[in-house]
């Protein structure tokens, strides 16, 4: 007996795959913390093995992204717009991409940040990880949101998390400023090319927090259908 029955009506929920993807992305960023520590100690062997692991996780996130996209034909009726969902997915994915590129950049250049900013850089990583963790928390609320059919009560919970994300992102901006100020003071005594890439590392790292914040705000749009 073939599929001439009512079960053809039910598509696979995109929510769990989206959560899995965000989890994977968050793991990438979290692992970057370890990478940066190893790099700061100039333990390049360890750093390389962590970089490979990050790369593997990024690849896995990519696979999850592709699979989710494939299972999302335009004939699906979902409680949110398909466009918004795909946007959230792409923004999530950018976190993993940036992290992978950043680890790659630091690895090839054997980049060690000047001792004056070394600690602040670690702080920035911590703030970015915190921001993405909050974004993951928000995405993980999606099953509860669906179960309550996006009730106001549950949306309030998500709004609170999104508020938290925004706060963290703001915090990350502050830390970035500190690093830039410190780097600026070092400019005259540092090789310009190194300097350029220090700035770039800080910029990319900051972008992960931005992306995590965008995940939150896109999610808000997605829920407010």
């Amino acid at each position: 007996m073939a599929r001439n029955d009512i079960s053809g009506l039910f598509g696979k929920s995109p929510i769990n795959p989206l959560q899995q993807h965000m989890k994977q992305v968050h793991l990438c960023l979290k692992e970057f913390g370890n990478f940066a520590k190893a790099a700061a100690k100039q333990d390049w062997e360890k750093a390389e093995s962590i970089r490979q692991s990050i790369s593997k996780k990024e690849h896995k996130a990519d696979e999850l992204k592709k699979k989710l996209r494939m299972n999302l034909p335009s004939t699906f009726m979902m409680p949110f717009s398909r466009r918004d969902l795909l946007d959230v997915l792409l923004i999530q994915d950018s976190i993993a991409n940036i992290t992978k590129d950043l680890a790659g950049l630091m690895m090839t250049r054997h980049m060690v940040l000047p001792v004056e900013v070394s600690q602040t850089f670690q702080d920035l990583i911590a703030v970015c990880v915190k921001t993405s963790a909050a974004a993951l928390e928000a995405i993980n609320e999606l099953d509860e949101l669906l179960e309550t059919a996006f009730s106001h009560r549950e949306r309030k919970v998500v709004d609170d998390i999104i508020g938290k994300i925004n706060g963290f992102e703001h915090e990350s901006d502050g830390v970035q400023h500190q690093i830039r100020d410190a780097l600026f003071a070092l400019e005259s005594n540092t090789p310009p090319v190194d300097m350029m890439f220090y700035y770039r590392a800080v910029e990319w790292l900051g972008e992960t927090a931005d992306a995590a914040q965008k995940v939150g705000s896109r999610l808000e749009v997605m829920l407010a259908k």
Partner: protein
Amino acid sequence: MDIITQNHEILIMLAIGFGLFMAWGVGANDVANAMGTSVGSGAITVKQAIIIAIIFEFAGAVLAGGEVTATVRKGILDASIFVDSPHLLVYGMLAALLSAGFWLLIASSVGWPVSTTHSIVGAIVGFGAVGVGIDAVAWGKVGTIVASWVISPLLAGTLAVFIFKSLQKRIISTETPLENAKRYLPFYVFIVGFVIALVTLLKGLKHVESLKHLGKDLPTSMMIAVIVGIIASIIAAVIVRRIKTNPEDDADFQYANMEKLFGGLMVVTACSMAFAHGSNDVANAIGPLAAVYSIVESGGDIASKSVLPSWILLVGGGGIVFGLATFGFKVMRTIGKGITELTPSRGFAAELAAATTVVLASYTGLPVSTTQVLVGAVLGVGIARGLASLNLRVINRIFLSWIVTLPAGAVMAIVFFYALKGLFGA
């Protein structure tokens, strides 16, 4: 007239055989769709679903199926055309049964979308219009039936939106969903029990000789319906209270226990679905059989008012049970596996909406498609943002089933009609 009296026995035998065949098809395919949602949400096992189906399909057919049976039996065609040639009506009904049965068999083995209702209506209209004459078809009634195919899923969808929104407001998105589920769910069951009982009393029972008097006056019917509703809600309350909830289950997903309560009530909704399906779809097999029987038994009297003998219902019920036992349980299992995304609370809303709609259709004597009504109800829950993803391509399949099933049933019925005519004589 001679044809009928001469071939009295063989015609009855054929009618029983074809009726069984058709009922088998209904049991093998259609019932599984009606019950699959309950199985899919994990609330009841396939075995339980079959037991429920056997009891309540039967009850639905016997207690509330009379009105639709009457429509299929003599509503679609204009009986006055056949007064001088009752044997043509006998051939036609036999052909319709055979054609619908075959179509179910072919379509479900190939995987085309089927609806028993559409195939039998298509078949009867087909042989009537082509085999006898355009005037033989009661086009007004056919128009109403076709309209009901559009309206019934829409109605079920609307009802589902309301039921689900109300569940959301009263239970799901409150501070204490678990307590509220225990408090309010029996009330929902009461309403459904009341509606089904009232409809059955007012319209269904008049076709059951020994229970006819019960539906005669409104106050008594209301009283009985209230009592049935109360009994149903007490059963629901007991079920809900006996379910063991475990607060630890809610650590990961805070609605796990609430869903468990809804799951317990899926037994009740499955019963109402089976009853509704029995009250409407069983008539597809019984109606033509009853038509043949009454004409043949009265020696060709079209207007014969003879009541349905109970063995005809047994043929319908027996055929369905046989269909369930041979194929239906497999289909049910497959369908159940296919719809695990439907959680009990959603299944509850969709099934209540669908069952109520189908029973109301039975009340008006309109043969509708239970599957399509259920699809409408599920889409309603989807519109209320209750489901993660629904494949709207199914709607195309429904249209396809319209476009394919109606003419297929008709063409086959015409062929069988002429074959029978050649066999027994015009």
